[in-house]
């Protein structure tokens, strides 16, 4: 019954992308490419990023609310299904707040305005079978380990148990092959803009715009001593968005008593812009599991916009409680710097640096969807 309700919700939200006139609140600049991935009980994951750019899709379904300073609040539902190392995903991201103030100039990490419906396809590539020579070395180390310890079934001994032995870890070494990921994400964002083109009557026009975005990513985790340390990914992103003009306040007289009314509107229809971007991302966590915090620096270059952006999200990650329930609000901050590269002069720190505090509240209501 829960599945039917949520699927119905998704269908309702994603219905009707045709342009039509409406009266509504003013929206700001166009949609962000990478909606924020939120995980519920996965907060202890060493590659988890609560709200930063994530080239690696979540493997599980999730529902979360995120609030970013100056960007507003978004709610997002992700439904995922994994089989045979393929992960298929469908997501709906809905802006909740009505007064989005700013948008990050290069559309780095951020929340989508309007409604965004996305699909995601991810594949793990992993063929870790070792060579016969390496396998034989492993058997020899295991035999030594078994002779030194009381082992019920020697067949069950693994490499990590041998390497945890103070003697064997200096005699035995085996490098295991790591997996790597390929990810395709596509989405459509529907955003409403209110503006006027009538400088006399100031007639407000409300129109909805549908913009696509597309991202291809490849990434791999980095293990040290068979423990996951970090994750690296590179992505190509195509995005389209609408930029609006400045908000103007028009003061017009009415009646014969010298009264005036004011209207605040954007003058001129929004302009469509597209950009092709290359992004590199590195994610790692620091500290023990129960006190993790993570960073995910990324570098983005807009081929069409000629802009370069650097982002440094810092996540405050808390492990789940003893009964495996998420610990509620998770938060952090993000520093982003964007500069134009056309003239060879870097944008000043004052104009290019954006600092945000972001809070995400996960809701572990979709646990039944997850394997």
């Amino acid at each position: 019954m829960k599945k039917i309700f949520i699927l119905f919700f998704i269908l309702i939200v994603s219905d009707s992308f045709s342009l039509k006139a409406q009266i509504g609140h003013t929206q700001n600049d166009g949609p962000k490419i990478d909606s924020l991935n939120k995980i519920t009980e996965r907060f202890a994951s060493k590659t988890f990023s609560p709200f930063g750019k994530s080239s690696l899709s979540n493997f599980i379904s999730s529902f979360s609310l995120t609030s970013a300073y100056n960007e507003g609040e978004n709610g997002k539902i992700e439904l995922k299904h994994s089989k045979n190392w393929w992960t298929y995903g469908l997501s709906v991201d809905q802006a909740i707040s009505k007064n989005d103030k700013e948008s990050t100039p290069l559309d780095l990490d951020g929340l989508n305005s309007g409604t965004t419906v996305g699909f995601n396809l991810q594949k793990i590539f992993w063929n870790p079978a070792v060579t016969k020579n390496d396998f034989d070395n492993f058997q020899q180390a295991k035999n030594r380990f078994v002779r030194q310890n009381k082992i019920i079934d020697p067949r069950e001994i693994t490499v990590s148990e041998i390497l945890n032995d103070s003697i064997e870890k200096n005699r035995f070494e085996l490098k295991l092959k790591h997996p790597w990921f390929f990810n395709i994400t596509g989405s459509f964002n529907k955003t409403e803009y209110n503006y006027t083109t009538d400088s006399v009557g100031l007639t407000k026009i409300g129109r909805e715009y549908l913009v696509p975005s597309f991202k291809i990513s490849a990434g791999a985790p980095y293990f040290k001593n068979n423990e996951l340390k970090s994750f690296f990914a590179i992505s190509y992103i195509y995005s389209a968005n609408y930029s609006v003009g400045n908000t103007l306040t028009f003061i017009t007289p009415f009646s014969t008593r010298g009264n005036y009314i004011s209207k605040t509107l954007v003058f001129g229809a929004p302009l469509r812009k597209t950009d092709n971007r290359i992004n590199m991302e590195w994610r790692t966590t620091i500290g023990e599991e129960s006190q993790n915090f993570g960073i995910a620096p990324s570098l983005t270059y807009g081929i069409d916009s000629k802009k370069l952006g650097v982002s440094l999200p810092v996540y405050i990650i808390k492990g789940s409680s003893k009964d495996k329930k998420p610990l509620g609000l998770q938060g952090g901050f993000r520093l982003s710097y964007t500069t134009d590269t056309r003239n060879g002069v870097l944008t000043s720190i004052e104009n290019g640096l954006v600092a945000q505090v972001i809070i995400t509240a996960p809701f572990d209501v979709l646990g039944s969807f997850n394997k």
Partner: protein
Amino acid sequence: MNIIINTQAKNGHLICYLISSENITILSIKDSGSDNCKLIPGSTYRFEWHVWSDMKADYKINAVVSPINQGFPDLNWVKSYGDSHQDMGGFYFSV
């Protein structure tokens, strides 16, 4: 004579191989699954498995040979990892 292998992976990824003495992969089971194949008496096989996850995870591998054979007692490998991990196990056997 058959070998039947069942695997379970929770919050992680597992792959289990059955490899012949000619280094040919006879079976390959990913995450949670099952498969079986015929074994040739006297041949040496490699039973090998790998796991990884970016978080704590639980794994199970159950393998039985039918009919019962002294060369391969029932295998029931169960392991939990409390943090991110990558690991492997395996052994040679003949029936």
